[in-house]
């Protein structure tokens, strides 16, 4: 069997593993980011401080260290996660922290008059957040959110550190067997590029779909 006949099927399995990680971690990290970002602006002092602490922690740790702590550190405390779920959890915690900052900034950017009008109608703080502020803030946060997801597509390769057999780990393994770095890593790089490009295009489409007529300046 030629190199490619062995490499490509293995790479495909790795690719599917990468997709599985992203399919779970990306949406949950966005949701977690929305919760954290909202908590920082709308939470009471305790909740807001707690959220700020969580963000500070997971934005401050290098992701690779977070992953090792989750996988090996938790195991020492008797909490055993499979490599796959350790990676997913690490990505959610790290990415959610970054996402929350985009969300927080976007919430802050919504005109205070929108809050006043919501309250004057009798909305509770939660209703105000859900029905008035977030629908506007998330539209504004979308470029940042897509930016962070593109990062995640690429740093999902760090899952190899806890032993997930994803795309990067497969290629690293094959390179040590066959030592054909140009073919192997270039193929992998192209696949990552294809993934980030499709993410970019999808978010562009989503942005234009969610556009509020008349609100943006037409160029």
């Amino acid at each position: 069997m030629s190199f490619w006949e062995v490499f490509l099927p293995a790479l495909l399995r790795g690719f599917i593993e990468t997709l599985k990680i992203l399919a779970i971690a990306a949406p949950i990290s966005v949701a977690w980011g929305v919760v954290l970002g909202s908590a920082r602006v709308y939470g009471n002092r305790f909740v807001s401080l707690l959220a700020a602490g969580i963000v500070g922690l997971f934005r401050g740790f290098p992701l690779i260290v977070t992953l090792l702590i989750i996988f090996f550190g938790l195991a020492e405390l008797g909490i055993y996660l499979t490599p796959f779920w350790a990676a997913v959890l690490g990505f959610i915690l790290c990415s959610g922290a970054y996402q929350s900052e985009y969300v927080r900034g976007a919430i802050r950017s919504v005109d205070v008059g929108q809050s006043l009008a919501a309250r004057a109608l009798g909305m509770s703080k939660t209703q105000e957040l859900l029905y008035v502020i977030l629908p506007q803030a998330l539209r504004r946060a979308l470029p940042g959110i897509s930016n962070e997801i593109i990062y995640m597509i690429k740093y999902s390769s760090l899952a190899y550190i806890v032993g997930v057999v994803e795309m990067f780990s497969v290629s690293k393994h094959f390179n040590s067997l066959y030592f054909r770095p140009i073919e192997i890593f270039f193929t992998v790089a192209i696949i990552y590029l294809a993934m980030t490009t499709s993410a970019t295009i999808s978010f562009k489409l989503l942005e234009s779909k969610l556009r509020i007529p008349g609100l943006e300046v037409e160029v």
Partner: protein
Amino acid sequence: MVLRAEDIHKSYGETAVLKGISFEVGRGETKVICGPSGAGKSTLLRCLNLLTRPDRGCVWLEDVELTSPSVNINEMRQKIGFVFQEFNLFNHLTALDNVMIGLTRVKKMPKNEAKRIAEEKLLTVHITEDLWNKYPAQLSGGQKQRVAIARALAMDPVIILYDEPTSALDPHLIGEVLEVMKELARKKITGLVVTHEIGFALSVADEIMFMYDGRILERGPPKEVVFNPKYEETARFFKRISELYGVRR
């Protein structure tokens, strides 16, 4: 009595903005508050639905004391319409949805019933069907303010507070908004209006309250306060206003 304010005080740091304001608005009445900027008019209005909490004093809505700590203010605010100078329509919602959202989300009304009421209120303020699905950014200032009035009306409030509703409008759009407000006043929708539009006050207000330096300096029937004021400050203010704005009737 629909609304009663008793000895309202409010300070920001060292600056006392409201220095003991008391008044009342009866059912079906329209009262106008005017006065120079910095007199505390907007602060007073916001103290009435507790968007700003007064430091001292009570606000009563019908027979409930809003300023009492045990009151669920969100519930009470449903009964107090509020129209802002800057409209503050929800940017992400169409005109129709702006009017419906209070009904569906706050009053938990079924969608079709909310839609029926919203459409009726939009027609009341002369927003025709072709504008119902427009977003705020696609509407003129006058249209936006009328949608905002419809949004307040839809909640079936016992009183509507207007905070300089025409001050952010181009002069040629002021008329359409004042016309709607006059129609509501004539329908005996209780209203408290902060405005410099003396013509509006003269044609529909039951009383003018002239605010000066955190107090109500003078109050009475519009014609008396405007044309025959007791105080020098009042006279100076109305003279200046009529020079600047003219009197629109």
